[in-house]
């Protein structure tokens, strides 16, 4: 990396922490971050200042109805969960020990995403079929094509997925050893078809899943998976 590279990215650290970069700039910055210890140090230094901002707001009272409606939903769902008969399925669908993925990891995943599409080509593949949440994405299906033992990632192909509102995208995730690792985001065409390269090694992964996230992707899933490929 040249000194000029670093200088041109140095001022991005603050804007990155506050979410003020555009998606493209954020991705470029994360790629730079992966190879720049100075910017990583700066990020760590400034993180407490950014984290203090939400604590500066004047405290206002939430309406009591908010808690009531939230708890009604949560208690109903807790009852439904406890009456589910298949423990294996429940285990598969739970997201244990989510790692709060560092921006660096997301950056590396994004950088690898570019490579994966090229790496996966023609060797013998196996296909795994996804379990779909029929209530939220009725009629959708997905297949995960894994080349060899999956060390070079995989390709997830979806069909029948609804188009999302502006500013929303689908994002893939890999679950491994109780951690959820962010993968690239993707969109679907008018007929609901789409594909995304999963750059992560999936040979020892527990599952690959998909959620809806804000454009640019998230560091952690913000909803239950819409579909999941158990591995």
């Amino acid at each position, binding site marked *: 990396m040249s000194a000029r590279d670093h200088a041109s990215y140095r001022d991005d650290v603050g804007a990155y922490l506050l979410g003020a970069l555009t998606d493209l700039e954020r991705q470029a910055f994360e790629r730079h971050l992966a190879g720049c210890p100075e910017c990583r140090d700066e990020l760590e230094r400034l993180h407490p200042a950014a984290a*203090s901002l939400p604590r500066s707001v004047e405290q206002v009272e939430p309406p009591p109805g908010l808690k009531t409606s939230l708890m009604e939903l949560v208690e109903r769902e807790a009852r439904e969960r406890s009456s589910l008969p298949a423990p294996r399925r429940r285990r598969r669908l739970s997201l244990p020990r989510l790692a709060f993925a560092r921006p660096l990891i997301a950056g590396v995943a994004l950088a690898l995403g570019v490579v994966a599409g090229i790496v996966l080509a023609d060797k013998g593949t196996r296909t795994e079929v996804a379990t779909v949440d029929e209530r939220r994405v009725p009629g959708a299906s997905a297949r995960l094509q894994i080349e060899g033992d999956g060390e070079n990632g995989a390709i997830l192909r979806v069909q029948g997925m609804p188009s999302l509102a502006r500013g929303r995208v689908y994002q893939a995730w890999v679950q491994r050893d109780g951690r959820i690792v962010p993968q690239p985001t993707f969109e679907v065409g008018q007929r609901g078809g789409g594909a995304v390269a999963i750059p992560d090694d999936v040979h020892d992964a527990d599952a690959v899943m998909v959620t809806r996230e804000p454009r640019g992707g998230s560091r952690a899933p913000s909803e239950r998976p819409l579909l999941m490929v158990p591995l």
Partner: protein
Amino acid sequence: MAADIRNLADEEVMQLVGDGNAQAFEVLYDRHGGAAYSLAYRMVGNRLTAEDITQEGFLSIWRSRLRYDPARGSVRTWVLGIVHNRAIDAVRHGAMHERRRQAIAGVEERHEAPERTEVEAARREEARSVRTALDALPDDQRRPIELAYFGGYSHSQIAELLDEPIGTVKGRIRLGLHKLRRQLAERSAAGGFA
């Protein structure tokens, strides 16, 4: 409600929430729902939207069984980060900017939370302390920070609003955060807040 859960530390409560324990979730909401709603309200300036954002944020924690990692900061910081992301999404993709301007102009009535417990009083003190540190920044550093974090504006929008070059805006945000960090560290060392 198991009084036992109320006596647990945030980190232990989060373990139970991850296991699908609704009572633990209620404790999580009681502890951080107010701060989350306050942040959402500060950002969107509208009670109904702030309610929606807070509800969506907490439901996402519950439904996706998001696991909290203590290495990444306190539970409160984590919860507020989730709500902040939702609010950014709302202000960027809705008509929130206009609503917020109206709210800033005083259209929305205020509904300040009463100080009921020692914890709430401590949070108010903390908020005052961070606000004082923020207010102590030069205007040209504080404004872009507030527009970015609370307004959800991109740096190019901020550059346009403030009529400054983009590079200048980014540089001032970084310098302002440095200064804020130093001030908070000094206050913390002086016993301001942990």
